């Protein structure tokens, strides 16, 4: 059977109401996004899995309050982001050098796997809020306005986090790998 498009799935939601959609289908649809935000943020596979499961349990409890596919997507990103920050704050910060830091994600089909690995490590070393901004921008391809709404943050703050983080990442990559063509 051919895979159903996002548009078809959206039509389903708006037609029936979010609560009536098969929950397992919803989990399968969003599991990768939720898990990846947690994984890129926490750089810990098992913690990311646990956190993603908790997010879906919370989603199940709040399913009837969600009005549309977009609302659900927004809710999932927001709850995942907040849970990531809560998770980090509950645990004592430990100083780990970048080389000792665990590889946050499985190898991806990237043009330069070494650069990708380094970048994931550098992103994982950013402060909490800027890290989330970068993850939502580049993993979820969200606009600054959307990120500001999800993180309940002024737009100017999101833009400044993004700008500073990019400058920091560029500097770190250049320092570590010499003149890389970026």
């Amino acid at each position: 059977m051919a895979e159903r498009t996002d548009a078809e799935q959206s039509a389903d939601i708006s037609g029936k109401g979010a609560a009536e959609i098969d929950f397992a289908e919803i989990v399968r649809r969003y599991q990768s996004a939720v898990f990846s935000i947690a994984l890129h943020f926490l750089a810990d596979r098992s913690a990311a899995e646990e956190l993603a499961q908790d997010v879906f349990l919370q989603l199940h409890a709040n399913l009837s309050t969600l009005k549309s596919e977009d609302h659900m997507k927004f809710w999932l990103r927001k709850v995942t982001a907040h849970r990531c920050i809560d998770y980090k704050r509950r645990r004592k910060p430990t100083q780990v050098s970048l080389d000792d830091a665990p590889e946050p994600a499985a190898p991806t089909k990237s043009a330069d796997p070494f650069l990708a690995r380094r970048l994931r490590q550098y992103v994982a070393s950013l402060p909490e809020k800027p890290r989330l901004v970068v993850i939502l921008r580049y993993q979820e391809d969200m606009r600054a306005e959307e990120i500001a709404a999800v993180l309940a943050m002024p737009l100017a703050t999101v833009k400044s986090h993004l700008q500073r983080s990019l400058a920091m990442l560029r500097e770190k990559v250049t320092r570590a790998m010499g003149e890389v063509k970026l």
Partner: protein
Amino acid sequence: MTETNMNTNMKKETSGLDEALRSALQRQEVPDGFADQVMARVAAQKSVPQLVRRASWLSLFTQPIFTQPIIRWAALAAFATVMIFGVHLYEMRRERAEGEAAKQRLMLALRVAGSKLQLAKAKVNEMNANENQNRQVKE
């Protein structure tokens, strides 16, 4: 250099990093059986009795019995009465304790004053005795 040119240069500079970040932060595959585990946890949570999942004692007030206005007002009135009575009792006890402390202080002061008077009386008696003795010697 105009502002437009500067912006264009900045965009060119960041576009390479943008692409590298997009590639590095691609969505990852979830571990096998992730959805099944979530569904199992959902099922397990459903089977937990409501009582165990009660968040706090405050949720008692959302129980059906408290949703009836008359019961709610009666509960509030009872609560207010208990609070007023409690405060009154506390005030009474505090006043009594303060009175006891004042009484103790007064008793101590009287005792001190009494002993001082005894001392003064002894001194006067001694002085009188000396004076009488001197007078007898002179005579």
